[in-house]
């Protein structure tokens, strides 16, 4: 008996006991579907994180952020001036290997207005380095220039979504004037569109809602905050991360007279946090998978044992007319495998359906990937084989004389 006729034989047996087979297939199907879903969630998590990690500049980015001083040291906080442009200048001076040092102030809320249309933006006052430090590229026009800073020029570079919301399609954007808190700004550049879709949710959507004006213009003409929102540093390679982080911290302690009113944040911490989250997910997913494996396996084994019990005469006949124990073993193993595979096909279909459904709703989107489908199928084959071995072995050991006499 070859493999295909074995599968055909298995399908006939499954069809011959519809209710019983359906219940077993249901177990396998749910097991496989849950596995595909959990795997999809892990993939979605990973891909989303990777995309947002890249959007945030990857491991080559370091951020200096202001931080509240500890309560017991608060009386000392006035001797430090906080995170300022001076910090940025000193960092650039003492760590020349840092590619770009970008002091930034976020204006919040920031609403841009153009001919009666308004649009909220993630608006930053920044130096020309901001684009390199934060991985922005220009679609058209120019970025910010040193001269803009020197002249407190009223120019703005806007993200793709801001441009498409404020302006009509096809309308030229460069050279138009938008208003920010009553101050007119000339649009000199439009940024590229960033897209990393999961379902219809764009992970990088925030980037497209960004807008940048010269830091000096923001400080002199819109508002005058004493402190920076952050300083973004871009280092040449992740290998230097630890060393540069330490040096930057030392420089800042010096400048802040030992007051810890700043924080040097790298993406390494978020990588570590992510990895532990992922480990948790994989473990939880593995536990779900193991339990599903067990339940489906028990279902298949139960069905196979019942089937063999009913078919003792068939086994006896097959052995009497010349089947080897091995032939019977393979026959029943293939039947169990067929059950597993069939459950796998339905389970993968259900899992895909579930993923599609969940992509439309919720914050936490699973991702359909080849690996989750592969894992689902591998699982169903494995469970079919594992659960089939013992019943098939039992069948193969039947003595034809006893089996034929059996009633």
């Amino acid at each position, binding site marked *: 008996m070859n493999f295909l006729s074995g599968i055909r034989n298995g399908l*006939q047996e499954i069809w011959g006991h519809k209710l019983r087979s359906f219940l077993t297939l249901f177990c396998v199907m749910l097991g496989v579907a849950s596995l595909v879903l959990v795997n999809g969630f892990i993939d979605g998590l990973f891909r989303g994180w990777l995309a947002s990690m890249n959007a945030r500049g990857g491991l080559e980015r370091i951020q200096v952020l202001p931080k509240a001083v500890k309560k017991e040291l608060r009386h000392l906080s006035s001797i430090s001036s906080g995170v300022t442009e001076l910090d940025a200048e000193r960092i650039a001076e003492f760590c020349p290997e840092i590619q770009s040092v970008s002091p930034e102030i976020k204006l919040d809320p920031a609403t841009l207005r153009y001919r009666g249309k308004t649009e909220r933006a993630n608006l930053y006052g920044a130096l020309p380095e901001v684009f390199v430090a934060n991985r922005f590229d220009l679609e058209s026009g120019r970025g910010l220039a040193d001269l803009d800073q020197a002249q407190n020029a009223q120019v703005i570079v806007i993200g793709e979504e801001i441009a498409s919301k404020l302006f009509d399609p096809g309308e030229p954007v460069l050279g138009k004037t938008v208003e920010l808190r009553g101050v007119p700004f000339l649009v000199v550049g439009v940024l590229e569109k960033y897209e990393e879709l999961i379902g219809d949710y764009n992970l990088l959507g925030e980037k497209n809602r960004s807008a940048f004006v010269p830091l000096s213009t923001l400080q002199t003409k819109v508002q005058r905050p004493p402190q920076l929102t952050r300083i973004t540093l871009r280092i040449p390679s992740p290998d230097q991360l630890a060393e540069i982080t330490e040096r930057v911290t030392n420089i800042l302690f010096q400048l802040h007279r030992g007051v810890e009113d700043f924080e040097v944040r790298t993406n390494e911490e978020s990588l570590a946090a992510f990895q532990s989250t992922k480990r948790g997910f994989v473990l939880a997913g593995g536990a779900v998978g193991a339990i599903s494996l067990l339940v489906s396996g028990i279902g298949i084994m139960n069905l196979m044992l019942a089937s063999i019990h009913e078919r003792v005469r068939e086994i*006896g*006949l097959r*052995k*009497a*007319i*010349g089947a*080897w124990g091995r032939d019977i073993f393979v026959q029943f193993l293939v039947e169990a495998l067929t059950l597993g595979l069939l459950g796998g096909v339905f389970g993968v279909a259900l899992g895909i359906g579930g993923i599609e459904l969940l992509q439309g709703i919720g914050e936490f989107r699973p991702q359909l990937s080849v690996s989750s489908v592969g894992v689902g199928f591998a699982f169903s084959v494995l469970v079919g084989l594992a659960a089939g071995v013992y019943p098939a072995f039992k069948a193969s050991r039947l003595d034809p*004389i006893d089996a*034929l006499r059996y009633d």
Partner: protein
Amino acid sequence: MTDALPLVCMRGVKKHYPVGSTVVKALDDVSLDIRAGEFVAIVGPSGSGKSTLMHLLGFLDSPTGGEIHFDGEPVAQIGANRRAMIRAEKIGFVFQSFNLLPRLSVLRNVLVPVSYIRRRVERAEERALAALDRVGLRDRAHHLPNQLSGGQRQRVAIARSLINEPRLVLADEPTGNLDSRTAESILTLFEELNAQGRTIVLVTHDPNVAAHARRRVRVHDGKIVSDS
């Protein structure tokens, strides 16, 4: 008869089972020759040892002592897989309860033994149809067994036993589950097959069934008590 070797040659064959501290002698010192082309009935009440004798003739079991030659080869001491191969290639089985596989069509039932021949088989389907033709059921090839009467099912089983052109057809109470008229027609079919040269061994407890054979071997208490 030619002086060629008999198809089956048993000398001093024993089948003893240990049961607790005693030994049950299911067959004790049996010698029997069956020549090609014979139609032999093995007769005896239940517990006489005729089933054990049939198991040995059909290679379903091995003796605990004595010599058996089949088709010129010594076969008393061969392993389970060799016995399975001989069953597949040289023995055709017909059982009391037909033992057709309910989910397979008549044609595919007849073809089941072909899958256990361990070499390439040519034109199997054609031969299966010919075997069905031989038992008069070619037009039922695509029916399922439960669409047939008892006598028809046994005919399918006979066609199945013929598919591999066996040297010996072994029928164990083939009419036990049939009414007497149907039984008669099945026995007539065996007579016809024998007339065409098939060697047939019929195992039965019923003297009326045994009367169709040309030779009757009577078994009692594990021994052959008459052979005529």
